[in-house]
């Protein structure tokens, strides 16, 4: 049965004015698996993610979550669906007017209506899970380094125990060591929660570490998808150029 797939996209299209950003994206993520979408800047990775999250409405095509069509949901049904999701934003997107623990507990307090004390306890536990002590709980996001903000953001994404977690360029802007720390945290958190994960990145080290499956997007289409172990024997010249980071190849030839 196709309900085996936690997330499924069928021929999703999205254009901004004249510009076709998604030109028929189809992909699926199995329950409890981690899919990483790779691709260059401006190929439609972020738009794909935002369409699944419902932050953007696709022009056509269908997006199924647990086998249910979601691309046309609105209002309270959309709010309800959102409770299944957790998201780690590229820039962290922490609420700078709130202290760290309230950031982490935000979804618990406002989304799930938990009591404040209880939410605080869970927040501190989640902060510990990402390697941060109780001492940061009362600080504000601006007082933390980029790497620590990313960790807090990760703690916030997993705090409500989501079934699906999205990661938008989780390692961008971090040093290689911190990037690896974040990768490990992602792998562990996803495993602990038994969640399904969808990541977009152009960092190949990160992709190899956190992916079960990889899909490559190019010019608004998925041009290759397979297990991460098959990545090096894809036989696809686009994938080859991308994973080896070559300046010359079919991707750049096409652009020129």
């Amino acid at each position, binding site marked *: 049965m196709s309900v085996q797939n936690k997330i499924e996209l069928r021929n999703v299209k999205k254009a901004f004015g004249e510009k076709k950003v998604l030109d028929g994206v189809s992909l699926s993520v199995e329950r409890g698996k981690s899919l990483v979408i790779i691709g260059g800047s401006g190929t439609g990775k972020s738009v794909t993610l935002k369409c699944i999250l419902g932050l953007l409405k696709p022009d056509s095509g269908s997006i199924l979550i647990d086998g249910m069509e979601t691309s046309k949901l609105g209002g309270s049904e959309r709010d309800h669906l959102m409770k299944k999701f957790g998201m780690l934003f590229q820039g962290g997107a*922490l609420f700078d007017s709130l202290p760290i623990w309230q950031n982490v507990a*935000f979804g618990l307090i406002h989304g799930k209506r938990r009591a404040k004390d209880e939410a605080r306890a869970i927040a501190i536990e989640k902060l510990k899970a990402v390697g941060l002590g109780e001492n940061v709980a009362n600080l504000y996001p601006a007082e933390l380094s980029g790497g620590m903000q990313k960790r807090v953001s990760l703690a916030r994404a997993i705090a409500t125990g989501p079934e699906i977690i999205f990661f938008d360029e989780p390692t961008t802007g971090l040093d290689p060591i911190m990037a690896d720390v974040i990768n490990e945290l992602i792998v562990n958190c996803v495993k602990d929660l038994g969640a399904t994960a969808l990541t977009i990145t152009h960092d190949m080290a990160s992709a190899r570490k956190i992916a079960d499956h990889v899909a490559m997007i190019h010019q608004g289409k998925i041009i290759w998808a397979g297990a991460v172990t098959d990545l090096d024997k894809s036989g696809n010249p686009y994938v080859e150029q991308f994973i080896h980071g070559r300046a010359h190849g079919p991707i750049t030839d096409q652009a020129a």
Partner: protein
Amino acid sequence: MKFASSVIMSSFMPLLGDVCQGVGGSILQIMGAIGRLTLFALEAVFHVLTPPYFFRHVLRQFLDIGFYSLPVVGMTALFTGMVLALQSYTGFSRFNAESAIASVVVLSITRELSPVLAGLMVAGRVGASIAAEIGTMRVTEQIDALTTLSVNPLKYLIAPRMLAGTLMLPILVFVGDIIGVYGGYIVSTHVLGFSSGNYLHQTWDVLENIDVASGLIKAAAFGFIVALMGCYHGYNSGRGAQGVGMATTNAVVTASILILIFNYLLTQVFFS
């Protein structure tokens, strides 16, 4: 002759087409913007009226928009009242009509100057800060983050500001009324040599409920406009620092112009 006119037509028609397209295009754009703004306003009002309510946020906005605007509005009203007394004295003394100064001051302040000037000052102070704050939240994806955490940004961010703007500006204007009249009183009694009793008597004689009430209703409308413009432009802010800067400018400019337009329309409704 026929040849000449066809030459003129053939060179003129494309130009005419361009002009029509330009005019039509911008009219469509303006209509689209008005439509989007109206939908945004209706949605915001809906979220003000329906639960859940974020009481702490509403209180916080009451403080930010209301209380912290008091100095600015108070100073504006004080000096406006003072200069009104001074200016009307130089005019009225030519006709031996000094006794009209009190009525000019109190009517101008309560009906027009206090609501309009407070509205414009608050547009600069509060409208700009709302647009900048919400615009920055848009640019740094904090608004998207709210959505993914199952909290409606319109309910959490926009509704408290709209409510606070609409309720706080009348209070500010009421305080401004008192301070403005007091400013006129100070100048009249200390600089122009009026007797304090006479001045107050003349003020009370001419003042009617509708003068103050119309000013307060105007203030509520202006407060709504300021908060709406700040929220709308911030919420739809473009990318980066430039986008936020543009949103802030647009919020203040559109709010100021709408305040002046609605001031005229409301005055017409109340006093004609």
